[in-house]
């Protein structure tokens, strides 16, 4: 365990690096099994916000379960700072789609879940909890149950619940899905500020190209099933980012076009093979292209 200086409410962030090497994951009985992820290799760089984008149903959630350690790869390795991932652990915390706050606990109890589970409730942890409550703007909602919070508040509470465990990597699986457009954009600004301040390694999965470009330091563009990294795009936009700047930025639009053309090519290829997900994607892509 790291020592926490009694004065500082915030424990030091130790950003981690995840290396995925030749990972294959297949489901089904031997002989009739189907590869969802095949020979997938990529790195989630230390202290950076890596965004993974790909069509829905392309196996991203499977990859997340492998990173989190809920499942083991069929072959290949997942390593955090050189150590193989063998199971779920507080150093790789997942923020789920929709919300996975425990409905029977108040905001405050939800946030303190991890420290209590590990028997690490100290003065410093409680101070850090207060700091986080303030940080995510839920000080007044500490004694409310998740059902009493709005969608945006729920996501913020969940970010706080993950951050109090001071993980080396935060893994976010389409965390802002299901929020309305306005709230979603507010959450982007809010979340990217959190990441910029903490310097933590973040891995963010999405299907939304605007979200991806706004947030990412590095963008991993994924193929259809079986999942592989099709391209890596470095998003060299200045931080801190603001939505208004992003809309006007030529560089942002250029990156968006680049990523979309890769996704488009990928979808076309799958479309030729008769994938339904690809058909949906092509339709969505054409709509977006017409709008642009």
């Amino acid at each position, binding site marked *: 365990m790291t020592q926490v200086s009694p004065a500082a409410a915030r424990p030091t962030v130790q950003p981690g690096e995840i290396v995925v090497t030749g990972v294959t994951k297949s489901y089904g009985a031997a002989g009739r099994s189907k590869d969802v992820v095949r020979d997938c290799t990529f790195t989630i760089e230390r202290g950076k916000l890596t965004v993974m984008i790909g069509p829905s149903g392309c196996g991203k959630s499977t990859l997340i379960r492998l990173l*989190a350690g*809920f499942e083991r790869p069929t072959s290949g390795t997942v390593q955090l700072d050189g150590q193989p991932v063998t*199971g*779920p*652990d*507080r150093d*790789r*915390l*997942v923020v*789920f789609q929709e919300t*996975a706050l*425990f*409905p*029977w*606990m108040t905001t405050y109890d939800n946030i303190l*879940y*991890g420290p209590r*589970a*590990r028997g690490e409730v100290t003065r410093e942890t409680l101070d850090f909890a207060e700091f986080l409550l303030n940080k995510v703007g839920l000080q007044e909602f500490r004694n*409310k*149950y*998740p*059902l*009493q919070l709005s969608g945006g508040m729920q996501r913020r509470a969940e970010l706080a*619940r993950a951050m109090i*465990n001071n993980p080396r990597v935060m893994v976010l699986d389409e965390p802002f899905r299901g929020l309305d457009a306005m709230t979603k954009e507010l959450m982007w600004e809010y979340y990217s500020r959190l990441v910029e301040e903490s310097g933590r390694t973040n891995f963010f999965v999405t299907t939304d190209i605007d979200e991806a470009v706004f947030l990412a330091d590095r963008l991993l563009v994924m193929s259809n099933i079986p999942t592989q990294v099709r391209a890596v795009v470095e998003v060299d936009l200045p931080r801190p980012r603001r939505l208004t700047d992003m809309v006007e930025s030529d560089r942002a639009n250029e990156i968006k076009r680049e990523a979309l053309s890769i996704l488009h090519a990928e979808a076309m290829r799958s479309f030729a093979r008769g994938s339904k997900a690809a058909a949906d994607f092509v339709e969505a892509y054409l709509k977006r292209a017409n709008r642009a």
Partner: protein
Amino acid sequence: MAARMGRMLTSRTLWRGVASILIFLVLWEIGSRSKQWMAPEMFAPLKALLGALGFKKDYLPWIGTVPAPSGVLAAWLEVVGSAGYWQSWYMSFFRVMGGFVAAMLVGIPFGLMLAVSRTANGIFFPTFEVLRPIPPLAWVPASIIFWPTQELSITFVTFLGAFYTIVINVLGGARSIDVRYFQAAQSMGSSGWDIFRRIILPGTLPSIVVGSAVGMGITWEVVVAAEMISGGGSQQAGTGGGLGFFIWNSYVGGSYEQIVVGMISIGIAGYFSSELLRWLGKYVTPWLRVR
């Protein structure tokens, strides 16, 4: 509190409820008295019509044989002062609570065990599923033979009434807890007893409440029938043996008003039991009454 009472008294729902009960009582009274009222000659054609339809001719079908609410009230006033009537209440309540509390104490841990342990599930669930379809009342004769006292055998049958429902609800509830809650808890360093205490138990509570409410209803159904069949512990001479036996005794004695008194007493007892459970249920699941 006072404001809440005030709102309750002015709420339409309350007055609709009161009106509903009053209208029911009035129609019932009219139906019961139809025998006297239809005596005059002017009702002859109607009586002939009813006769042609196959009903007895001198009163409205069915309801005409039932004692009127006024008669029932009179019968109730007669018994309300007697110790035997309240003794019946007490005995039925005692058996219901005994069986129900035993069913909770055994059923909740048993259901949770079936949910969390694959081994326990493999060992116990098949037997449980074979015994479950047997109606509790089919257990009455066997139960009288097995248990040393009649009291215990009736309580055992009421226990069975609630037990299966509670176990099935607990099992289903625990199984339907979102897998992401477990994953989140595990990631944050929680395991074993901590997951059980802070995830499985509260996650199952709403199902425990529902299962208990349904189980309580079945318990009242069962206790009354069990009392009727077994003679309600009639060895305790002079006191009667529960509301079921009270009804049966009134039937044998030919006091039809008292039968209805017994029925309504059960209705009221069941209502209060359910209210008590609902209140307890809200108390233990505060996160569900928010919004």
